[in-house]
């Protein structure tokens, strides 16, 4: 059974009571969704390109061990130090050990969802280190002691007034809610940190096996600063981030920005290969890549779920999802919210209690439609639901209801008998125009909607009367 107090449904209900949250999520995510649609529509080869990207990523995942070894070999050849971590705790320890050797100044951080997965900031602070988020959205999240609600635009859940009050409180400034002024404050504060930092930590959008390179996409320039000024660069990456060849990158760079932000290209894309070369006067002297498993190999073990690891974290499925757009990212209580989070959550990637997430979907398939690597998200959600029910995670009423439904739909006489029973209740329902609340254990269903009156005639009867809808009445 799902824990009642901390399930997705309860958190969803909480989110809906938050002032203006629903409106902000609707507006912002819908904007992202329409910008993506516009960008995709301008490329006639869009669907073919997505199919190609799917093929490259599925091939990569099926040969992941080989590509990991190829990447490691090539990265090490140019002087990058490659570390593997089975668990989040191991990765945290690896970062902390490197950072402790370079204690002067703060650790400047670029946006990285893997670092959220590790809860890296809290652990580094506990070790006496000073991690500082430098992406504006992540900087705001860190100041607020909050967590990101979207994998691309982390503070989608806050409005400018809330951010203005936060800056006034935490930074001791006069209140302003002007985005330009707030950004200028962050730029000034963080520029000082960049100039003093000895260690820069980033994620990685892609790792290139045949060159041993790290690819990073961004708009602000903070990731470039993190990988240019500090003496040490640490890149955190999930095992699935690999592309076989540099030649593949061109195709993926035509997809990722368009899907993530609707841009043809993000402001900056860096292709980094090893530490600074002999004689160069800038760039990191040490480059580390930490390759994180943390549940990914378990996902790999199921041939159906393997495709989940082809995700390039563009965020398009979040913006496309009517559930996400209504409740926002925090309701998922997972590092990865939205449809992709519902696939990763049950494997403890990003959350410790994600088994009920696959149930929080209308299965409309909008996520499947926008995915640039054609992950069949909707069917995978069904697959994960089946798995959850088989392992005893579905609740009693849900299971009983569906086994009754399943039986009824397989035996026509039984179904008709049920329909006849419904007729008995119809008279009562017609008088009241539907039921405000269902009795007993069914009350949950009618908590947020009325039970509608039954149709005057069953579909079966309508079909017979109209010769399958061919005769207009």
């Amino acid at each position, binding site marked *: 059974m799902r824990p009642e107090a901390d399930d997705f449904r309860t958190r969803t209900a909480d989110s809906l009571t938050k002032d203006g949250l629903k409106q902000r999520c609707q507006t912002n995510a819908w904007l992202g969704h329409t910008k993506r649609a516009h960008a995709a529509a301008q490329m006639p*080869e869009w669907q*073919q390109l997505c199919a*190609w990207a799917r*093929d*490259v990523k599925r*091939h990569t995942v*099926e040969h*992941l*061990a080989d590509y*990991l*070894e190829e990447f*490691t070999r090539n990265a090490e050849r*140019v002087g990058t130090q*490659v570390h*593997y*971590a*089975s668990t989040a705790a191991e990765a945290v320890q690896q970062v902390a050990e490197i950072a402790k050797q370079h204690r002067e100044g703060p650790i400047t951080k670029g946006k990285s969802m893997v670092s959220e997965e590790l809860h890296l900031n809290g652990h580094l602070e506990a070790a006496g280190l000073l991690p500082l988020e430098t992406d*504006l959205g992540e900087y705001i999240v860190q100041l607020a002691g909050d967590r990101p609600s979207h994998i691309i*635009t982390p503070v989608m859940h806050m409005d400018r007034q809330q*951010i203005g009050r936060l800056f006034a409180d935490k930074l001791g400034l006069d209140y302003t809610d002007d*985005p330009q002024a*707030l950004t200028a404050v962050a*730029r000034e504060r963080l*520029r000082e940190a*960049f100039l003093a930092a000895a260690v820069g930590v980033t994620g990685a959008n892609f790792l290139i096996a045949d060159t041993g390179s790290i690819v990073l996409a961004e*708009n*602000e*320039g*903070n990731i*470039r*600063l993190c990988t*240019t*000024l500090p003496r040490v660069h640490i890149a955190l990456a999930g095992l699935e981030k690999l592309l076989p060849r*540099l*030649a*593949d*990158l*061109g*195709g993926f*760079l*035509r997809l990722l920005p368009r899907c993530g932000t609707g*841009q043809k*290209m993000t*402001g*900056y894309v*860096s292709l*980094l*290969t090893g530490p600074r*070369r002999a*004689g*160069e*006067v*800038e*760039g990191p002297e040490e480059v580390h890549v930490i390759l994180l*498993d943390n549940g990914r*190999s*378990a996902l*790999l073990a*199921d041939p*159906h779920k393997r495709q989940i690891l082809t995700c390039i974290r563009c965020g398009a499925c979040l913006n496309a999802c009517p559930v996400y757009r209504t409740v926002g990212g925090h309701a998922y209580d997972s590092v990865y919210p939205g449809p992709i989070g519902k696939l990763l959550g049950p494997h403890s990637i990003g959350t410790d209690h994600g088994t009920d997430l696959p149930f929080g979907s209308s299965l409309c398939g909008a996520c499947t439609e926008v995915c640039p690597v054609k992950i069949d998200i909707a069917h995978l959600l069904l697959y994960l639901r089946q798995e959850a029910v088989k392992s005893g995670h579905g609740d009693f009423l849900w299971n009983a209801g569906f086994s009754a439904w399943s039986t009824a739909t397989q035996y026509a006489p039984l179904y008709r008998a049920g329909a006849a029973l419904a007729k008995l209740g119809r008279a009562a329902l017609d008088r009241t125009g539907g039921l405000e609340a269902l009795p007993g254990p069914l009350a949950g269903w009618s908590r947020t909607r009325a039970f509608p009156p039954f149709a005057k005639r069953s579909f079966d009867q309508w079909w017979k009367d109209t010769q399958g809808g061919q005769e207009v009445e």
Partner: protein
Amino acid sequence: MSKESVLNAVRGALTTSHGAAPPAYPVEPAPRSAVTTDPDALCREFVQEFDKLAQYEDQRFGAAWRVASVDEARARVCALFAREDVRQVCASPSPLLDEVLSDALRQQVDFTLATTPETAGANLSTFDLGLTDCLCLCARTGSILASTAEMVSRAVSLLPPVHLVLARVGQLVPDIPDAIGLIASMPGFPDDLPAAYTFITGSSRTSDIEKVLVVPAHGPREVFVIILP
């Protein structure tokens, strides 16, 4: 050891299969619709795309100009220095820079080459303008591709509030995949890649607060490109 245990876990996981053969690496390169290779058309597309990126409501964040001669390029640089009140310039050395930056232009400002630790990295944050050449320009996206090959500084295009790029018409390519192709055609590929390639597309920007576009975020506020014959 972590490496072995992770790789073993991955290998172990991959022994289960659907029955179907695992997908092969796609034989065909990424599909794309036809593109022009005419330099004039590419140049027009680049300038148009770049100008779109550089304009937002009534604000301007740079410009791209195609010039007919070195003299015209010098006039553009001179006018830009005057208009932006540029006093301190740092530059990455390049043959194109030597050709365009006349002694007169160098004397107009406090001119430094970013070639020593004192004129690199964090020390560049006090300069008004960073000047670089580039590897190529991508017409479809309005992107500039720069690299650290031949000691080109990374911070010159990042820390000063204005970035000026010099390029030639012959450096235009249709789109990002062509630029990647150019990298792959460099001598020494894939064994001897420069430490950093950077695609630069417009000014440093953010829209994290209520999706309102703000320029600059952490990098330059303005980017200018002068395209010589």
